[in-house]
Structures are given as C-alpha cells and as structure tokens.
C-alpha cells in the first residue's frame, strides 16, 4: 500500500469577508442572517449563480442548503492554533476536516514565505518524516544510495498492516534516521534525500 502525506488542516483566510474566491466559490455580500438562518448568500459555483444558506440546528449541527440540496454539517467550537489562527473540526459527508482560519496579516506573511520556499524547494535536501506511528520492519536504502521517485525506502508496520514508504523525489540518500525494529511516532525523521 502506498500512503501519501498525512492530511493537514484545510486553511482558510479570515472568512469574515464579502467577495472573493473560497475554494473556488465566490461569496457575494447578501442579507445578514435572521433567526436560526445564519447566513444567506448568492454564490458562484463553477461560474453559475446559486443560493446558499446555512441554518443552525444546535449542538454544533448545521444544515447547508445549496441549490436546493441540503447537507448536514457539524462545526465544532474553535480552538486556538499557532500564531493567531483558529481551528475548527468540521464534519461533512462522513469526512472530518480541521479548518484552520488565519488572520489576513498572517496569511500574507505565510504566502510570501511559501513563495520564497517554492523557488528553492527543488534544490535543498528533503526530510521524509513519519506520517503514521508504527514499527519499522524493513529498510531498503542506505546512505549514499541513489533513489528515484516512487522507489521503496522502508516498510512500516502499523495496525497490523505493512505500509511501504516510497521516495517522493529523485535524489541521494543523505541520512537514514531509523533502524529496523524501531518504533516511530508521527513526525519522526525517517530519511533525508538530497
């Protein structure tokens, strides 16, 4: 089994706004909510105007009504994230997401930093970190080995399954941070590829 990167929170810049793209959706200013209807907006979904409303049911439960289609959404109370962001757990269609809302000032800073990183990302060494806790049962590479993207690096056993970790890019193995038999936690450094 191939496992991709661990899910990170969805990120949303301060949503207390009027117009602008929201995950491909434009929200136009509209009438403020009344009663239990929290918000009613005209939105553009794939360029088509549509009416969206959200209604509070209590206990974190909401009904999202979009183009006459209702879906149940649970929005849990927010918790404080790092550097002024707030994080809410949101349950939709059986999925759970962490929606991280960040103030605009921080979003702008982060975007600048990301742009700077993107320019140099293909050059520097890449640290491959554990995304599931488990036990290392096999290591297929050693320091100095040349690897190509998709090549197996090591095998981690978690929840009775063996998960193959593959190289995310071409490069040379600069460091192997674990040994066979070692128990690893999320975030532990496994391999460095340069």
């Amino acid at each position, binding site marked *: 089994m191939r496992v991709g990167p661990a899910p990170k929170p969805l990120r*949303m810049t301060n949503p207390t706004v009027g117009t602008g793209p929201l995950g491909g959706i434009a929200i136009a200013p509209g009438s403020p909510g009344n009663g239990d209807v929290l918000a009613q907006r005209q939105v553009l979904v794939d360029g088509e105007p549509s009416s969206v409303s959200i209604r509070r049911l209590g206990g974190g439960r909401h009904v999202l009504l979009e183009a006459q289609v209702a879906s149940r959404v649970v929005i849990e109370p927010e918790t404080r994230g790092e550097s002024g962001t707030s994080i809410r757990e949101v349950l939709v269609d059986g999925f759970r997401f962490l929606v991280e809302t960040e103030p605009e000032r921080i979003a702008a800073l982060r975007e600048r930093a990301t742009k700077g990183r993107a320019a140099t990302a293909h050059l520097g060494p890449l640290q491959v970190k554990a995304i599931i806790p488990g036990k290392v049962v096999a290591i297929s590479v050693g320091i100095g080995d040349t690897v190509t993207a998709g090549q197996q690096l090591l095998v981690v056993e978690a929840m009775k399954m063996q998960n193959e970790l593959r190289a995310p890019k071409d490069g040379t193995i600069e460091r192997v941070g674990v040994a066979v038999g070692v128990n690893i936690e999320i975030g532990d450094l496994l391999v460095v590829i340069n």
Partner: protein
Amino acid sequence: MTLEPAPFRRVLVANRGEIAVRIIRACHEMGMEAIAVYSDADAEAAHVRIADRAVRLGPPAPAESYLRIDLVVAAALATGAEAIHPGYGFLAERAAFARAVEDAGVVFVGPTSDAIEAVGDKLNARRLAARVGVPSVPGTLEPAPVDHPDRVGELISTARRIGFPLLVKAAAGGGGRGMRRVVHEEDLAAALVSGSREALSAFGDGSVYLEREILPARHIEVQLLADHHGNVVALGERDCSLQRRHQKLVEEAPAPGLTVEQRRHLHQLAVTMGSAAGLRNAATCEFLHDPAGNFWFLEVNTRLQVEHGVTELVSGVDIVREQFRIASGRALSPEVIDAGNRASRPASHAIEVRLSAEDPARAFAPTPGRVGRWTMPGGPGIRVDTHIEAGDRVPADYDNLIAKLMVHAHDRDSAIDRLRRALDEVEIGGVQTTLPFHRVVATSDAFRDARLSTGWVEEHWDGEAVRAEAVRRALLATGLASLDTGGAPAGPATGAGQVAGGAQQTQGRNGWRISARTHGADRWPS
C-alpha cells in the same frame, strides 16, 4: 421454552474491542460471569468496563499481551474460569492456544486444536477439499520453496500453469496479510519473499502458496454450527464482496441473486467441508462465486467471524449463545436446526458496514487517535456493535474496527434504504473513519442492483473526488457560519453554532467585514 442452566459459571474472554464486548454481553445474558483481559493500552477500555473482573496481561504490543498464550491461560486458572472464548483475531485460530487451553483443563469455545490445525492451514484445507470433492480455487497444494533459489525455475513454470495475474497467499494467513498480487512473471520472486516476510511477522509462519486470481468474483461464505453429537448445520450465507486489500468493508445476508437451488448446493458444500474437517462449534466456509455460477472453496475460518451479526439477524439464532451451549456439550438447539432448514429460503435481509479508523480517501490508511463526537443511529432494524464512546482512544497497536453498523429489514431494498437513513445519523469526530465510503455504497446504483465483486472498491470508489466535494462544502459551510457569527479568528473564541449577535452585525457595513482577499485551500495532499 424451558429455562436451561448456564453452560458455564465463569468465562474468560481472550480478546478486546467490540467482539469482547459482544461476548461479555452474551455471558451476562446467559447468567455467566465474564473475565476480561487487557493490555496497558486498554486499561480503561469498554470490555474492561463491562466485565465482572479484568486481568492485566502486559504492555500494548500484542506479542506481549493478547498473544501471550501462557498469560491468558494463567489468567483463566487464577480466576477460576471454566471456559475461554477467543473471539476473532489474536489467538482465535492458533491451534497451540486451543491445545494449551485444553491441556489446562479449561474448555475452549471453538473447534478442537486438531481441527483448527487441520483446516487453519489453508494448504491443509485445500488438500482436504480435494479429498472430499469440493472444488477449490486452482493453485498449488504445497508451500512455495521461498528459501530455495535453485527451485525458482520450477516455481515459475507452476505459476505459468496457474496463469497471471495470480495471488501469493500465506498458508497461515487471514485478512490479506502476507498476500501479494502478481501480474508479471518477473515480480513473482519479490512477491514471494515480501509475502513470506509479512506472513512470518504476522503469524509466525512464512509458508506461502500460489492461487489463481478469480476476477470478477463475489466473496460468499457460509456460517456453520456443529455440535459434539454429529449435527452440522449451515445457518445461511453472507456476501462479503466489498473489500479493500482483501479486508471486508460491507457484508450482507443472504447473498443477493442466488436461487434456492444454488443456496442448497452452496450450503451442502460447506457442510461437507465442515463434516470432513471434524469441525465443532462455529466456523465459516469461504467461497468465490464466479460469473459462470461456480463456487470455488477458498478457506475455512474456525472461529466466530466479524460479520456473524448479519446471519444472526436473518436466521434469528444467537451464534455466540450457541457457541457456549455447544462448548458445554449440549446438542444444537431446535431453533438452530429449524434455521438450518429455512436457510435456503431466507425471509429477510441484513447488511453490515464496518466503521474503521482509516481514511478512505487516502488508500484506507490507518488513522489512530482519540474519538471526539460520537453519535450512533437508532430506531427500528438497527444494531450497533461497538466498544467506543466519545473520548475513547483508538490505539495504533490493534485492528482499527471501531463499530459494526447493522441494518435489518424484510427485503434488500428496504435494508439499503434503512442503511442510508442510519448512516445519515452517524457523527464521528476526532478520527477519520470509513463512513464516507459507506455513504457512497448506500446510495450507489451498482450496490442497489447487486452488481457485487471483489473489485467493487476499485471500480466504484473515487475517494479523492468524494473528498474534494466534501472539502468544498466544509469550507463553504465554515465560511458562511463564521460570517454571521462574526467569527473573527483573532478575537475571543465563539461557539460555532452561535447566532449572529447584534454587536457583530454592526461591525461591517453589511453586517460583516469586507476584505479584499479570502480563500480556502485544501492543503492535502501538500
């Protein structure tokens, strides 16, 4: 019906999770005391909470706790348990465990150690099937010589005869562990080595063999009950075709679309295998059903199955209760004989979905963690077997099944309607589960039309697309809800369900602040 005395006074349940809870409940219904065992990861787990007594086994690692035969048997002797129920998984199909229990003078709730040995090894079972004329999936009957590089040529010619793609399977296997699919001849050697390695680590036995991949095929299995008086009864069959990585996701009883004659034939094949193997207690005979209508014997499971509940709902038999009765030497109850006679003409339908801590949009990768919000459905025709409540931890050390949701109705269509309704009521926070997948199954035309196959998940489940739509709605809903609660993230924490307050209404010109930029981004996969 007359009240019969409890089969045992005290029973040790050598398992954890939902199945330990299920068995302890049966003990209590039958007037038996239940002793739980636990690892340090489960000191406050549900099965410990509801048992009459609990014995610590050791650290979280299964090899140091739930797999320690000596400790489990010692716990039974120390607490005066007269019988041990192994559940499924862990030691349930280890002949050495059954033998140790027998040797300690305690009753093992399951087949004898000899019978477990005879069919627990899939190669043994395949040879037994050949002897009694039950057709098994074409393949080899002896272990592949993994440690003999000189015999690779012989192996490859055998593989060619079976045909590619084929499966490398663990003789001691179960749940797809040690299994490898091989499409190209040149990949065979590597698959044998890695399959054997996984089998060795999972079962302590690295024997692997080759089997033809039958695809498309349906996975259909027959529930057997057998007593010590020569009665072997098929309670009915289950269709468990919806699988990922050879682990079942959805099971239903009966298997849709079979004729009465097909059912009789299938049940007879299973009874033949059960009788030939000298099985006692509960067992399951698994088959592949190909589009031509053939049933190919796959393996025998000498234990209670995860999905036994759907058969209980349709047959009206409490299988765990019968297991205890059988283990105490009683003959199968008249209800069981009666249910066996009706098994080819089932009168209702049941479906089970496995809610597991895994991300269905990320190749069903495990997602251990702490459960947050936890709401299970109720109402007519619903059964939920679980060990979880809000705030419980799902440890990374064990199987990730957290709940079995079963629905029962007079026919399959009504059962699917009920399943869809029940899934709408489910709310699980804290860990990602297979819930999105099951919601798609319950509304799928292919499932409704009973177009079932072991390749169903690959054909009908596009996890990334389903997730992307959910992401869109999550951002939209959160954005909208925040707008009118004035949920300025840097401000004081506001309950997400708060109605727009007057003060915040006046904050912006139109009741909310205007900003030049906003966006929502799904940072997965980054």
